[in-house]
């Protein structure tokens, strides 16, 4: 028995820790659910939504974010094939696209602001665009920290289980914020 325990001690089991990330995803979804519920009730009671044509930049940023998810998928696949160099390349690309996304969101806010739809607004639905996209951007920042964590693991040549764990939690989180943004964008498009 002692022998099996030492054997098992050497195993790194990531399952509970990955579960933690999943639960974080759940609670974060609910926070955004709170805001979009506010929006629905607000819009229903006032009979109006934000009433804007959303800037085109948001479409571009959506495409960029989708692309970054593809890159992250490729990074995961490279790691599965045990090609760390390739994994690092795709991780860097994911991160770069994440940063481009952030830049485009700022562009989006600028063009909203210039069209007269500022954060400080007597239409709370317009303020809400800034709140949800802003808090989504905070998530992108956290996601970039996850990517850096996976990169460090890759460069340090961590054992495959640990490197896979870091890659996996990055993937869970990054794909989540990707889907989250698509949800928010479609929500804002439909409820104008």
């Amino acid at each position, binding site marked *: *028995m002692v022998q*099996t*325990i030492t054997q*098992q*001690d*050497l*195993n*790194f*089991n990531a*399952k*509970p*820790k990955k*579960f*933690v990330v999943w*639960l*974080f995803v*759940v*609670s*974060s979804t*609910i*926070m*955004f*659910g*709170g*805001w979009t*519920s*506010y929006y629905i*009730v*607000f819009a229903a*009671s*006032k009979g109006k939504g934000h009433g804007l044509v959303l800037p085109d930049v948001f479409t571009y940023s959506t495409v960029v974010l989708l692309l970054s998810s593809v890159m992250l998928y490729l990074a995961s696949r490279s790691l599965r094939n045990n090609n760390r160099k390739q994994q690092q390349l795709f991780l860097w690309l994911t991160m770069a696209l994440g940063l481009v996304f952030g830049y485009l969101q700022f562009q989006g806010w600028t063009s909203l602001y210039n069209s007269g739809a500022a*954060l*400080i*607004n*007597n*239409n*709370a639905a317009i*303020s*809400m665009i800034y*709140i949800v996209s802003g*808090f989504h951007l905070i998530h992108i920042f956290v996601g970039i920290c996850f990517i850096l964590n996976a990169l460090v693991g890759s460069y340090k040549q961590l054992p495959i289980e640990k490197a896979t764990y870091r890659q996996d939690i990055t993937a869970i989180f990054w794909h989540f914020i990707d889907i989250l943004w698509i949800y928010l964008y479609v929500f804002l498009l439909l409820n104008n």
Partner: protein
Amino acid sequence: MSTISLQDTHHHDNHDDHGHHHETFISKYIFSMDHKMIAKQFLITGIIMAVIAMGLSILFRLQLAWPDKSFPLLESFLGKWAEGGRIKPDFYLALVTIHGTIMVFFVLTAGLSGTFSNLLIPLQLGARDMASPFLNMLSYWFFFSACVIMMGSFFIQTGPASAGWTIYPPLSAIPKAIDGSAMGMTMWLISMVMFVASSLMGGINYVTTVLNMRTKGMDLWKMPLTIWAFFLTAILGILSFPVLVAGVVLLIFDRSFGTSFYLSDIVMGTQVLPNEGGSPILWQHLFWFLGHPEVYIVIMPALGISSEIISINSRKPIFGYHAMIYSLIGITTLSFIVWGHHMFVTGMNPLLGGVFMITTLIIAVPSAVKTFNYLATLWRGNIRFTPAMLFAIGLVSFFISGGLTGIFLGNAALDINLHDTYFVVAHFHLVMGSAAIFGMLAGVYHWFPKMFGKMMSAKLGYLHFWLTFICAYLVFFPLHFLGLDGVPRRYYAFTEFEFMNKWLTVNVFVTWAAIIAALAQVAFLFNFFYSIFRGKKAPQNPWEANTLEWTTPVEHLHGNWPGEIPTVYRWPYDYSKPGAETDFIPQTVPFSQTMSSNLPHDFEGNTEAEEIQKGWEVKNKPAATEAE
């Protein structure tokens, strides 16, 4: 088996985290990652916050009982907030606000779940520690910082938040509205965001640990009811606290950046505020979507703790183990669709009000199931009246007497009359306040030997129980009658109204009862802190209980069990099993060692084991088999 590798992985993690086993004072007592130490940190912080919040309640009770009397002592330590020895109206509002906030969130959420989930989840499930010890440590320090910031608001010029613990806008959203909505409210909001972060980190950890790190043999239906309660409480927290954050963020933007989420058509003096289009009712929706599950976050751990304690000290299996779990699940689910019953007077559509009324009344069913099961467990048991048992029975008493008035308030037609009166205050102080605090105290008395390796004095425990139990009823029961007569809550000096004057004598009585109840807590505090250092050394299993935590050594160690983690063979409630040698059979005893007491359903359809049992019975109990 996957379960084995899971806990042993954990063992491995401990080695990773704690490396070479030489601990400094800082890593052992301050930034500890050991779940037992974190539990103690939560408990002691919770006790300190409870004492503070109790002190605040005595201050406003003085005002309620003697609205025209001056207490020069108050001025000497409250300064300008009690000029001339009389508490100022603004400060009175701050007192009730902070009393409520601390009691609901800091004591009965963090102090209760934080202590007992941290202590018992790994110990009763057979895990080396939590899924993420680091997150666990972070959870405590976020909680601690939230406490410091909340208390810090007493040391600023404008004083603490004073819009009530529900901080309804517009009052809370306009910094100039009252002193308490200035800096104090900002600190309240920051503190609460940190508190939610702490709760989420804790809750995520609890759920993960319960689902992934149970020892071999511990399937979900062999878990003690404490664990079921903590587990479902954590799920409630994960699903509801983020909504509070969403609401709080919008309030912060309204207050500090000038948005109009909750504000519209406000005139301050002669000045018209620019905000337009928002709706304060939306805050109430977001707040109570958390707020109602929150009261179950408060009561469910207490219910779980008393299930365990009542079963152990009745020396009987808990009555209706499965019914207990299904009613907890029922409460968890229903708690998300009842929040509207806090908003019957907001101009809600009566049809919608009817829906919320029905869901609210349905929640009485699982609550009643639990109550009857407690009573049925006590019925004809060999009851051992330990202090923990008394507090657990006290919980049942408060849960019944407070729960009954919940049925009144759940009816929209009655609530419209009783809303925001002392009837509501009486209701929730019994069913949520007193019941939950009694559950928490029961847990402290019961698991103190596990936490500190020492016994608490039972005599002081009895004194503490009887004084607190009687005084709690004396404080809260009369308030029902004030409420029925229409006396509103949160009023600074209701004696200004002619028809309420007659209640002054009742308030004097209530205040005296509250003072005695507060003094009774000295017995507990002395007992608690004295016993940590000077208490009698605790035996291995002082209450003769079945659960796993009593198989760990009295002296704490990292990883909880010195060798292998024990395997679990049976459910935790085999007390007074007919045919058994002792009146309790721990979960770690296999059925092969208890042939004389095994029952057919123990084998869960395992035919091979049933055959062996039958063979043994033919050989050893010929008379019994014939009689069948």
